[in-house]
């Protein structure tokens, strides 16, 4: 069992979640409320990672953020980090491929909050910020939670983009799913099998816990609305 790789996977999942969830909430809510005609296009753009093969996402990331690209050079000279074959690069890639998982459920949840509630809150003298924190967020909470669970699970299992953008560097970009691949390539089915079983178990537990919480909160919310 490659604990280093597991640790790395957890770190990646945590960073992705912390950075992506606020983006998901802001973008999801905006998409839910906006009247812009470009909405289908924007939604399609955010859903792209769902339909594109990881190799396409990985390819564009390599091209646009590689050390020889203008963006890559800029980031290297300003922040001293490379966005390819490095952990920070993995986090950026992971945020991109998880955009649909973080945005779409949140958007649906905010769409379900009726406009009458907004008006009622305004009549009660609540500011838009108060309406957001006290009315909308508690109602949209299940959507946010399922976004979090999906992002977490998907990050733990991400493979293609990680391999393309991160390589397979021990302690840096070799996540658990890459470590499994590496063991298979080393004709070590026993270690690969052990890690695969482990990943299966924690993925199942993560998602089941998420659904469990959702189920317990769901009916309560329905009663209160």
């Amino acid at each position, binding site marked *: 069992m490659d604990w280093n790789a597991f640790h790395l996977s957890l770190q990646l999942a945590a960073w992705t979640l912390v950075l992506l969830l606020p983006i998901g909430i802001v973008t999801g809510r905006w998409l839910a409320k906006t009247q812009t005609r470009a909405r289908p296009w924007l939604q399609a753009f955010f859903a792209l990672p769902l339909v594109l093969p990881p190799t396409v996402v990985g390819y564009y990331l390599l091209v646009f953020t590689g050390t020889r690209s203008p963006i*890559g050079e800029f980031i290297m000279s300003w922040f001293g980090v490379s966005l390819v074959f490095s952990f920070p690069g993995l986090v950026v890639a992971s945020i991109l491929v998880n955009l649909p998982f973080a945005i779409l459920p949140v958007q649906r949840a905010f769409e379900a909050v009726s406009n009458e509630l907004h008006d009622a809150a305004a009549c009660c003298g609540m500011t838009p910020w108060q309406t957001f924190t006290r009315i909308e967020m508690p109602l949209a909470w299940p959507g946010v939670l399922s976004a979090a669970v999906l992002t977490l699970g998907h990050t733990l299992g991400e493979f293609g983009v990680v391999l393309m953008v991160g390589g397979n560097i*021990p302690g*840096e970009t070799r996540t658990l799913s890459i470590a499994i691949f590496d063991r298979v390539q080393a004709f070590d089915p026993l270690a690969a099998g052990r890690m695969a079983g482990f990943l299966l178990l924690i993925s199942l537990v993560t998602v089941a816990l998420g659904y469990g919480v959702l189920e317990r909160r769901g009916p309560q919310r329905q009663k209160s609305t």
Partner: protein
Amino acid sequence: MAGVPLIAAAASIRPALEEISTRYNEVTGESVRLVFGSSGTLANQIANGAPYVLFLSANTAYVRWLAGLGLTQGPPVTYAEGVLALYSRSGLFGETENPLMALDSALQHGVVKRLVIANPEYAPYGTAARAALEHAGSWTRARPFLLLGANAGQAVQYALQGDVDVALVPLPLARLAKLQETGQLQVLPKETFPSVELHQQMVLLPGADQKTHEFFAYLQSIDSQEIFMRHGLLVPSPVNLTLQP
């Protein structure tokens, strides 16, 4: 792990290099981090800024390519001579004088349904395998049945797990995967693929520090050469160890 040298190596030498790094750790207490892939993939990663400090290729071409880009440090060193082997599942054809000829006749009789090689476009052993098939006049006949591995390791993986009749793969990996237990494993002499060389070269990369230099030197020691040989690779004679870039 930041100070531990990160080494990129051809998948074909995985078993040998893993053993060498273990031995190195026992002898010196120092360790290295190993990343395996096809030589072409790794060279491409290096060109795109991957932080490797030493590159062990399965041929000279990728080393030369990187040197041309100004991404290497010092002259390359030939650490071993690759050995290509032909695996055929038991019952296809027994041990013969000329396995490539036997393969050609098996192809003509339509009994070969799947033939595995590494991708000739970026895996040196794949290039050698294609050259051997071309030299034997079997390439056109073999093409419809080809299954390509992303690197030599994956090619052997396919041969090990898939429903595969023939595989042209590196001897060290074929042995590690114990392919000889499910069929015939025969070494293909260099004359069978005269147009391709498998001089396995390594070269230091710009990030190489003192620790990397030490491991680089250890790779050229008798200890390491003995391990390379035990895994089925040929070792260059000391005179021509260092080739000019």
